[in-house]
């Protein structure tokens, strides 16, 4: 067979698979190129910072501290330090600072200000040093008094390797849902019609999702064992973390299964699931905290339910926070999982009608 014949065969093959090729050669590159707009800064410029203004602090004193932070972050006013610290643990803010009540007193020559960051928020540790440096130099240049800005780390300083353990586990769960589950379904396509004789397609799919969710216990235990062996202080078996991972898998597994059935187990469906996998990896704030991203990407991430699953896994496993702390977030992820059953059911109905 000559090269020309082979090339002609390839061309004919391409014409038959035009949809898949368009997906791989146009949509996928377009999505990746377009995603570049979501990355704007190397250092976080808009990370939310809690500025606590007590009752004895004037509006002008608060404004000066907020203005100093605004050059390098996004100050958010808090009335109580307890609320600010709670949000620090929940990654809603990345630093907490209290406005010194005597900042505006011309009689006072020196004031101290403490910027508190979370020791578990490893990626923010270095940027926070820069933040403190900028704030200190700005205030000392502009004010007539000496302002001593200190950085305080709440809890122990966690190593990056330890910080990333829950992140990698979540990545495994997402990959399991969007890559391995559709692959497994496609392999069993021929058996489905036989199974439907004895039971409903809904039951078959529900069993599959339940089995794979249970199967997640294996990587969970592996990660936990590695964490113990490495001496990481990470509680991956915390109930809130386990619940968040399971709900994430159910939601994403339902989406992936819906896509698989809707595409008739075709290549396009598998490629679309890969695209969804990248989307969830990119927009769940897995590795870097959400405060690191551009305002546009941050707004998107704040609307993605799996982001809250990640926050729950991180909060429960790294900080040993009780499950009740994450009740609303877990409830939101559960609702998301339930909602994703609707497209799944619709795709199953369509599949049955076609069959």
């Amino acid at each position, binding site marked *: 067979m000559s090269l020309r014949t082979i090339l002609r065969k390839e061309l004919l093959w391409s014409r038959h698979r035009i949809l898949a090729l368009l997906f791989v050669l146009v949509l996928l590159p377009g999505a990746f190129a377009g995603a570049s707009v979501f990355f704007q800064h190397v*250092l976080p410029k808009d990370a939310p910072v809690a500025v606590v203004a007590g009752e004895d602090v004037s509006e002008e004193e608060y404004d000066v501290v907020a*203005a100093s932070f605004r050059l390098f972050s996004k100050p958010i006013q808090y009335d109580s330090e307890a609320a600010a610290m709670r949000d620090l643990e929940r990654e809603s803010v990345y630093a907490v600072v209290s406005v010194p009540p005597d900042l505006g007193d011309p009689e006072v020559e020196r004031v101290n200000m403490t910027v508190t960051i979370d020791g578990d928020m490893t990626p923010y540790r270095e940027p926070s040093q820069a933040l403190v440096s900028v704030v200190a130099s*700005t205030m000392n240049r502009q004010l007539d008094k000496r302002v001593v800005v200190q950085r305080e780390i709440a809890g122990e300083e966690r190593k990056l390797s330890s910080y990333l353990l829950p992140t990698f586990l979540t990545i495994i769960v997402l990959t399991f849902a969007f890559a391995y589950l559709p692959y497994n379904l496609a392999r069993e396509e021929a058996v489905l019609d036989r199974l439907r004789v004895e039971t409903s397609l809904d039951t078959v799919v529900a069993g599959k999702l339940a089995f794979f969710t249970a199967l997640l216990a294996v990587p969970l235990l592996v990660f936990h064992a590695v964490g113990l062996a490495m001496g990481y202080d990470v509680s991956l078996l915390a109930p809130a973390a386990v619940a968040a991972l399971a709900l994430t898998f159910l939601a994403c597994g339902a989406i992936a299964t819906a896509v698989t059935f809707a595409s008739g187990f075709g290549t396009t469906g598998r490629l679309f699931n890969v695209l969804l996998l990248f989307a969830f990896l990119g927009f769940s704030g897995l590795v870097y905290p959400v405060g690191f991203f551009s305002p546009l990407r941050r707004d998107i991430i704040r609307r993605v339910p799996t982001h809250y699953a990640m926050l729950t896994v991180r909060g429960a496993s790294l900080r040993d926070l009780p499950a009740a702390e994450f009740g609303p977030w877990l409830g939101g992820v559960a609702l998301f999982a339930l909602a994703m059953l609707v497209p799944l059911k619709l795709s199953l109905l369509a599949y049955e009608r076609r069959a």
Partner: protein
Amino acid sequence: MSPDRLALTVAGAVTLLLGGVCAGAVLLVDEPAPPEPYEPTENVPAGADYVGTLNATEYRSDPAVSNGTRASLRFQSAVQFYDGPPHLRALALSPPENASLNASAASHVTYFGRSGEPYGARLVVANWTASDATDALAARRDIEFETETRRGFTIYRSERGPSVAVLDNGGEGGPIPSEGPRLLAIGNGSAVSDAVDVAIARSDPEATPETVGGELRRRYADTDDGYVRFAYRFRPATVPDYPFVGPAVRTVEYVGTSYTLNETAAAANGTAPPDIRVRIRITSEDAESADDVRNILGAGKSFYLLQSSNRTLKVELRKAAFTVEGRTLLADYESSPGGLRVLVRGLFRNQPEPQSLTRPSPEIDTARQEPA
């Protein structure tokens, strides 16, 4: 009256009437068209980085306003947002005491030049001759002028000082001075020479003068109709390097400023001076950069509010607004004439100081001080 005489009378009346109408039409046609409003940018050569106008008549109407204006014109250069012209030494504003120059005859002064270079001049609309200007400049500093004639325009050049040229007699155009307001170019030799080239092209109906245009002209037009209007193109080299926000601020492209008198009811009754409203437009590369500039200006306001003990000033400070519209930041201030100087200079002095803020080199500084 016989029919012939009647016809003759009617014909005569019609002839007289027609003659009157024709004579009136001729008179109307011969009457010179009213002068067009003074448009400063029409005389500014292309390639300028900044262009600004001062309505000197309005400026002189209140000594407090003039103080405020002079200080305010400098405020941006105080933070090195641009390398502005040496306004304080302008003949129209502060002529030498021993010069026989009627400074009050100057109605408009237009500034133009290039950022960070000695290139710059001002176009003065005044009832001055070239000798009036050169004598005043010689009175300020001992300099001698040599004359150069180009297509009917005379340029008075000094070896190490400013040049002077009369560009227009103000009434009919052309190089020959006559009674009435004139347009004089006073400043750096190259800038005056370019201004003369523009005047030559303007006097030639077939030539197209190369005047400032494009975005800078549009930015200048955007400064509204204040008695001080200023717009400049941003040179990256002159932008301060703010820590972490520096790269964003480096993208500032154009700045436009206008000062208007806000005639309040109290001012109309004569019980209070009018407020001065200042609007500054800072256009940067994108909305995010504009946001950074707003943060810097906002920080200046916060620091000033905390440290000032002047209650009136605090009231004015609280009214200062910084609004981002697309990639343009609008900074609005309103103040009494006496307070404007303190308000605006204080605001910019209280801004977070950039890391790379260094004093200008002696060469540039000397050039800026060149009298004109």
